[in-house]
């Protein structure tokens, strides 16, 4: 949303098999910072908001459980889609999240997870 170079930022993620959409979300405010959408089957604002809500609930959980560990990723499996949420911030208190929605029938989840992880490492290094 806010970066003119958003297209190129997320370009590597669009090459993942089964790519539906990807966006970078500010977890603290829920604002979409950059996005790319391959197919229209899912509402991008709603999917991004869902990722921010999940991060919000997990922060409450981590606070209440006094967990001394950072969030690595979240994978949500629907009947037709995977939603993969990954913090891209180098600091443990992740502020910027990457959400990637994939078509379950066309995705190898292990490979996709590896590619997303690699993207996030390159993004912040």
């Amino acid at each position, binding site marked *: *949303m806010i*970066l003119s170079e958003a297209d190129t930022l997320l370009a590597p993620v669009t090459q993942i098999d089964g790519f539906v959409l990807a966006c970078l979300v500010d977890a603290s*405010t829920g604002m979409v910072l950059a996005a790319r*959408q391959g*197919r229209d089957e899912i*509402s*991008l604002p709603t999917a991004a*908001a869902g990722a921010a809500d999940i991060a919000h609930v997990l922060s409450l959980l981590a*606070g209440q459980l006094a967990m001394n560990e950072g969030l690595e990723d979240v994978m949500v499996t629907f009947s037709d889609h995977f939603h993969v949420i990954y913090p891209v911030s180098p600091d443990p208190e992740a*502020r910027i999240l990457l959400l990637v929605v994939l078509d379950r029938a066309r995705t190898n989840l292990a490979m996709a997870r590896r590619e997303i992880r690699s993207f996030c490492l390159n993004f912040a290094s």
Partner: protein
Amino acid sequence: MSQLPRFSRARQLTASVWPGKVADDYDSLVAARFRKLAETASTGMLPFSGAGDGAIYFRDGTVVFARSTRTPGPSEPAGPGPAVPDAGPAAPDGTQPGNGAAGLAVRENPYTRLSAALAVAEPTVDATVELLVSESRFSKFRSVRSPVSESGPALDVERLLAEVARRRRIFDQLSPVVTADSPVARIPQLSGPDIRVSALQWALLIRTRDGSTPRSLAWELGRSVFGTTLEIYRLLALRLLSSAGQRGHRNGHDPQYGPATMSFVRAASPEKGGPMPADDHATRGGSGPEA
């Protein structure tokens, strides 16, 4: 001569200009003004005055910066990234904004560039929300040079309006529990044996004293009022803060702070009849068959 009151007749006459909208609707007037500036690729400043003073700066029809006297401005970046204007207006009590997200920008990579852009975009959206929520009057558009560098973030008007609407819906959700101007107080006894908070939450906790509000804390930390209000809500949910004088307390019941009180998903899905958020945030691309 028509028997209708003059005001109703004026509404009827202007109804075709904004179908489905009331002619004197402030939001419609602002949106129409913004869209006009976008269509004409205008560069300059739209000043606001009234309940909240400030201005919104346009460059080639996009919004590049906004300031309000009721929200902190951007902080100076510590490294590469878009230049930001002066540290912003002082708070009503003279407090200067502290270090915000811009302090993260040290080494050039996509993350630091995004953080630097966010360090300008977040206060811009925050100030715009404040100006529009307070229904400040806008006056004549002036041609002035943009206060931010060419490389700074540029926000599309439609996307900015959608984000402002989304934030207003979240403020509405939070209003029974906390608002930007609700006094909050620390709870001396922890409800659980152990608890974990983020660095930002800790910064808020140690600064909370009698009379603190999310807005005053936002000024102290140099962060957005919207983001700080959300973080205060999370501290209320963790029962580390209490919000005095809220509706629940007045009725003799504890207010409900559950995760369901505030939902980004609900804010992204407005009720029937309301304005829909822009659904075309994304750039088309990728490996999908329709791409």
